[in-house]
């Protein structure tokens, strides 16, 4: 405990690096997942194909994916972020597609009846109503990415995993504990706060309906 207090600056830097890794990966994942999710939402064959490919990526354990990317991308933040993005595609695309599909048919019909074009309907009706399911997907993604980013320290991506690995090699229990506890707290905090957002959105969309 005293080590953690004395070296809070070290921990703060690691925490910052970790958050930046996850945030960057999350933004990139959403940029890729949204078009994919929207495009495959009402196209079953494409949806199945996308789910298969992203599903295979999701099954590969983190360390293995880093190992497989190494000959192509080397070490550092680039392969780490790449792996983080590849992992999150399954859940994000799936939740976006499902969220859009579950918008009640009567609302779609009403919108068409009111003269909404496809893109306006998407932005004004389908996406807002799909938001709770999408945020649920983001919640799982963020928790997963925090875990994978921990392992990414092994390929020199920095982050809280670095503290853990240093503790292991230096046989220094306090570092391991500090790294492990901080990573867990980060994951729990992200999970709980996104749970709150999800709950608010569900309440809001059910009111609107």
């Amino acid at each position: 405990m005293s080590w953690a207090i004395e070296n809070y600056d070290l921990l703060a830097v690691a925490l910052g690096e970790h958050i930046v890794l996850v945030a960057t990966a999350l933004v990139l994942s959403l940029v890729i997942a949204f078009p994919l999710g929207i495009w495959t939402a009402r196209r079953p064959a494409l949806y199945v194909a996308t789910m298969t490919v992203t599903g295979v990526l999701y099954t590969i354990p983190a360390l293995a994916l880093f190992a497989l990317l190494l000959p192509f991308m080397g070490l550092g933040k680039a392969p780490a972020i790449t792996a983080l993005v590849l992992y999150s595609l399954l859940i994000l695309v799936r939740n976006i597609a499902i969220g859009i599909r579950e918008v009640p048919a009567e609302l779609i019909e009403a919108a068409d009846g009111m003269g909404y074009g496809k893109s306006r309907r998407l932005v004004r009706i389908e996406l807002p109503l799909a938001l709770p399911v999408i945020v649920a997907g983001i919640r799982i993604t963020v928790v997963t990415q925090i875990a994978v980013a921990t392992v990414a320290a092994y390929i020199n991506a920095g982050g809280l995993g670095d503290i853990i690995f240093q503790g292991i090699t230096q046989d220094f229990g306090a570092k391991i504990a500090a790294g492990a506890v901080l990573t867990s707290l980060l994951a729990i905090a992200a999970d709980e706060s996104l749970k709150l957002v999800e709950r608010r959105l569900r309440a809001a969309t059910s009111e609107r309906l």
Partner: protein
Amino acid sequence: MLGDILAWLADHPGAFETAASRHLALSITALIAAMALALPLALVLVRWHHAAGSVIAAVNVLRTIPSLALLAAILPLLGTGFLPSVIALTLYGLPAILINTHTALREVDPDVVEAGLGQGMTPRQVMRRIRIPLGLPVIFAGIRTAAVQIVSAATLAAFIGGGGLGELITAGMGTLNIAELVLGGLAVAALAMATELFFAGLEWSVRRSTGLAA
């Protein structure tokens, strides 16, 4: 690359088999232990629902902890090796089984439960004849999730001296032997996928046999 991998395998006979069998040993032991702990505990929690709330909340927190953090946290407490790795992996896989089993048993159609009670069944008979058979698909889905999670996390056991296929990756990293590294990556990926497919097949046959095929 393929040539390098085959050359490495030829130069290191037995190394791959050792790592793979260790990986399987870790995973199977942890899965069985997780089932042995979680299944009875879920049964108990269905009966004592006042305790259930806090236990489930605690287990939900456990589920959020990243695998590396869990494995590493075991190190100062229990040291390195096979047993600490198994313990960490058991803890990692336990939440999926516990939560799925508890939910499955608790959320069986209350009308069916009432019919059973009306026929004079005791709570234990209700559990044995109604809840468990009807809950079996979801329970098995939990076991499947835990199995895949454990096999994946066992890769990281290499960091706390537990061995396994992850060791091919860490050794390859340490000696900058790309062939060994990629072999480890491919082997782990293949094993994870095989586990997923195996348990998916099992789950499908469980659903079929209980007449609840989706």
